[in-house]
């Protein structure tokens, strides 16, 4: 079982936005949805390893900044060319204003 890691303060991310989080040599993307929930996925696009945190969040979708590949960040599902491999997602909780993610 792996530990919960503190990623950032909840206030660091706007609603419907995303932030990059690096930990232990890995990179993640932390999302705050329009209805104020938090999610986390692998930080790099499955097409060409680009940081998704530079992309645009719209509703449930993160759009890759490089070629506009789309993923549902809540489920990790790839949602359109050129991406076809899903993103890995991680459990997230908010505790005392801090966003924690469980890195498996």
């Amino acid at each position: 079982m792996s530990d919960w890691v503190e990623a950032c303060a909840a206030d660091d991310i706007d609603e419907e936005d995303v932030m990059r989080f690096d930990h232990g040599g890995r990179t993640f993307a932390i999302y705050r949805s329009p209805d104020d929930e938090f999610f986390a996925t692998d930080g790099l696009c499955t097409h060409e390893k680009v940081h998704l945190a530079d992309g645009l969040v719209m509703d449930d979708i993160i759009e890759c900044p490089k070629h506009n590949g789309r993923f549902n960040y809540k489920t990790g599902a790839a949602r359109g060319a050129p991406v076809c491999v899903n993103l890995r997602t991680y459990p997230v909780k908010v505790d005392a204003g801090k966003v924690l993610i469980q890195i498996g």
Partner: protein
Amino acid sequence: MVIIGAGECGGRAAFALRDLGYDGLVTLVGDEPHLPYERPPLSKEAMASDAPEIKAIVSDDLLAEKSIRHLHSVRAVAIDRAAHEVRLSDGSSLSYDKLLLATGSTPRKLPMPGLGPRCVYLRTFADALAIRAYLRPGNRVAVIGGGFIGLELAASARKLGASVTVIEAQPRILMRGVPAEIAAVVHDAHVSEGVDILCGDGIAAIADDGKEVRVALAGGREITADLAIIGIGAVPVTGLAAEAGLAIDNGISVDAQLLTSDPDIFAAGDCCSFPLAVYGGRRVRLEAWRNAQEQGALAARNMLGAGEAHAAVPWFWSDQYALSLQIAGLSDEGKITVRRDLGEGAFILFHLAEDGRLVAASGIGPGNAVARDIRLAEMLIARRATPAPEALGSQAVKLKSLLAV
């Protein structure tokens, strides 16, 4: 359903037909020996690696799973519209209910005597491998044409240690479709990486003796190179369509639904010209990757009877060194330009029409610095929005907030 051309557009269209639930025969015909693959890496990453690999957009397994028949290394040589049949180079024929032409484009040839084995073009993976073999320290490369493909190749060639001269007949590089302010950033990046850029000088003569190429410029200079790469634009592949009597107008002419002058034949991607709704139906032909994907998917929907009109905004990107450039819309539609600085040298030029409509946005910067704002600009363009120039120019105003209006 038969699709001619197994590139980005044809490949995406075949899968889109299945995703839409079509369960009849789907045949994808391509004259290259490969699975459909991505061309953009050919001037970028594929070039920089020691052993360039093809970046296929599908796998044999996926084709089998979706029951898509892919015929490779065969050309479609004729369309018999009355019989609804396509004749192939191996002597066989295919009958179709609906046909999609996704034949792409091919490099414009330099109309000049003297070209030889060391004068090359880039379109296919085979072309890329041939070029890659020359890119090493000590070799001299002449790039004829300061367009995207030539410049990306220049950057890759420098990365691999070759010396590079870019020859452009126009007064500056990237004359077509890129604002001068952005072209200047690209120009400076190349110069600081050691590329020699010669603008405003045409080619008087070329001599290739199989060992080296000598390029004589009208202004008197002579450049000697081990390889001359010619990148002077692309022309649509329309021969098959023209011989079948389909209307041609800077590409296979299609309507907003991508239908040709034959009600059972569609065309999409680099090979077609179409009315761009966002600019009041101005007829354009795009050579852009996302357009090929989107039109492939749209053609598939319309082959199944959706009757849907094209509505997308053109979008293009290019990578050179650490710089990435992205353009949404066609900047020549603009009359007024507003600049927005994003920090670290990244900036976006917003192009507005006289009536205040945002019609295009061109951005450049390190990595993906401009990506998010260009994407938001694209959405504003699609909505025919008229954002206040002051808001566009001010970093304090989030572009996303303009979309909410």
